[in-house]
């Protein structure tokens, strides 16, 4: 059990800065997801924790111990790789027991422990098989078993579910979360799938271009995105981002106007500026044309997905997506009207940063 800390860690590959002076504080037993698009630096960050990359600058601490110069073998971590990296010439048992073998445990002792772990992961019946003889989901569990077996201080996951099909992914996701809870080990999990991160993380660290843009509990990051980047990344479909201008107490779009919401900052200083209005699709409500604050738009698309229907409206060149929850999908054609409640609206400055 240990906490994990990054102190201004930077990693450069030649001219490219993959991780840019990152500070990170993961509490003991916490499950943190590194979330972001490819190339954002999340995998490099994970590899830095593992010791598979050396820092260019900065300090990494595990359990308050400075491990920046320590090799991966001595950091006492468990890691699940994206391709599982199960040794094809060893049986499942031997694979799981390997971390114990290199630490000098006797054959009997490590066999015992490996069996125990396999049992808790429900793969005990596969111990004599080789990795090529078991399914993808079972390989994944074996990989997890191997990461757990020597009771590491930190768990690392590098997109462990991306090679599973959709249904397995959901099962595995719940399984991993429960496992981490039970074992109580600090975990860092890399993914580009925002739903996955929302589902399992205690905190999500959204990364972009080598920096952590925002870190916080899933709902907080979802409800209060700090930048348009975060707003756009979380949520499916993503938050509607509409370019508007602040003029005389109103948010002006080419085709509609809305009263400006209350903010702690004095908005009058932003007179005439181009801002971004953000509203989540679930907060866009269908209404009649005569209701106050209604916005008119051309129906661009209608996607009945079962429990919800996605309605896309062309509002003066901007696409606005609404999620309608109703048993019967609305019958819409031509023009439709929607409204948004002022307290569900987000406001971002010209620099993309949230205005609170």
């Amino acid at each position, binding site marked *: 059990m240990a906490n994990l800390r990054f102190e201004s860690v930077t990693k450069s*590959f030649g001219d490219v800065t993959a991780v840019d002076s990152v500070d990170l504080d993961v509490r003991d037993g916490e499950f943190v997801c590194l979330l972001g698009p490819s190339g954002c630096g999340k*995998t*490099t960050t994970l590899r830095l924790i593992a*010791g*598979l*990359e*050396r820092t260019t600058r900065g300090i990494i601490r595990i359990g308050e111990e400075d491990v920046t110069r320590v*090799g*991966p073998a001595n950091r006492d971590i468990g890691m699940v790789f994206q391709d599982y990296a199960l040794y094809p010439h060893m049986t499942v048992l031997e694979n799981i027991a390997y971390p114990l073998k290199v630490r000098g445990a006797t054959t009997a002792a490590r066999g015992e422990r490996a069996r125990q772990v396999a049992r808790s992961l429900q793969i005990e019946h596969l111990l004599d098989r080789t990795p090529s003889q078991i399914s993808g989901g079972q390989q994944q569990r074996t990989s997890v078993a191997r990461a757990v077996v020597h009771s590491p201080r930190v768990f690392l996951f590098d997109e462990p579910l991306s090679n599973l099909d959709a249904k397995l992914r959901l099962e595995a996701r719940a399984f991993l979360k429960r496992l981490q809870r039970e074992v109580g080990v600090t975990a860092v999990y890399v993914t580009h799938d925002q739903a996955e991160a929302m589902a399992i993380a205690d905190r999500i660290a959204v990364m972009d271009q080598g920096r952590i843009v925002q870190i916080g509990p899933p709902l907080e990051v979802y409800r209060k995105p700090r930048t348009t980047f975060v707003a756009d990344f979380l949520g499916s479909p993503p938050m509607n981002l509409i370019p508007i201008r602040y003029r005389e107490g109103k948010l002006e779009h080419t085709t509609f106007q809305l009263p400006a919401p209350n903010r702690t900052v004095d908005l009058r200083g932003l007179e005439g500026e181009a801002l971004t209005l953000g509203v989540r699709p679930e907060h866009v409500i269908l209404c009649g044309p005569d209701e106050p604050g209604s916005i008119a738009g051309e129906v661009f698309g209608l996607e009945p997905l079962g429990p919800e229907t996605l309605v896309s409206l062309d509002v003066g060149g901007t696409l606005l997506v609404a999620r309608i929850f109703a048993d019967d999908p609305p019958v819409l054609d031509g023009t439709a009207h929607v409204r948004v409640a002022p307290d569900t609206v987000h406001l971002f400055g010209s620099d993309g940063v949230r205005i609170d």
Partner: protein
Amino acid sequence: MPSELQDDILLTRRTGLTLLSPTFVFVGLFLLFPFAWVVVISFTDRTLLGAGAANPQFIGLDNFRQLFDTQTWMHSGEFGRSLVLTSYFVIASLAGQVTLGLGIALAFHRRKGLLRETIFTLVTLAWILPETAIAFTWTSFLDPSGTLNTFLAALGLPQPDWLLDAPMASIVMFNIWRGTAFSMLLFSAALGNVRPSYLETADVLGANAWQRFRDILLPMIRPQLTTAIILVTLWTFNVFTPFLLTQGGPAFRTDIMAIHTYRIAFRYFEFGLGSAIAVIVMLINFVLAAIYLFALKRGEATR
């Protein structure tokens, strides 16, 4: 994510160099050192026995002068003559091996089955079976009353005493037989990598077999063609096996480079002279290899 592991974490530089040290030792000792030493010896009058062995003297370019002495070098059994014979040998072998190899590869392109396996096996065995055994069987094959002449007699063709009357033709045939497998396998693999859709498109467009070959297959196997040509040239230039058939004779008529070098160094024990020959051989090889690399680079540039 860069694929280069730049930080020496998988393998520290020290471990890596430790792993490489046996390679360095072997290569240094048995490849680089002999190369350097040959050059040194070529400037001496060293021999195996006698004064030249006890006290080799530095004689500068004398060995080379002797080799290129225009008065004598084209005489039978001399260096210049050997160069000429070797060139003929290499060109004829090259032409034979490459065309035959390509022909077989094309004939069996996209065909499978017992026939293909049998032919490929026969040709490959000709390449990999031990040379002394093969030399004996070829001596029999070329014997005045051997298989070849029996076959020719059946066709009503003349049956020369091959090893005596047509020794160069004999070793050329032998070398083509021995080496075709390399080209065949190389081209076969290259042709196999050509996507069937390219050829099918050509079919649909109405191309005949020759056009298909010339316009689609040939350009696509150009790098392999280059590889085959240069490697076969290098190997044939240095091959020693025909010695087992003719010993370089009769009367030095098949005195190709490798045999010539052997004779000078280990029959006449002229190490200095033999080394000089070796140096020239190596220079020629380097030039050929340079041409190869150049052609390869050019090939890459046009891709």
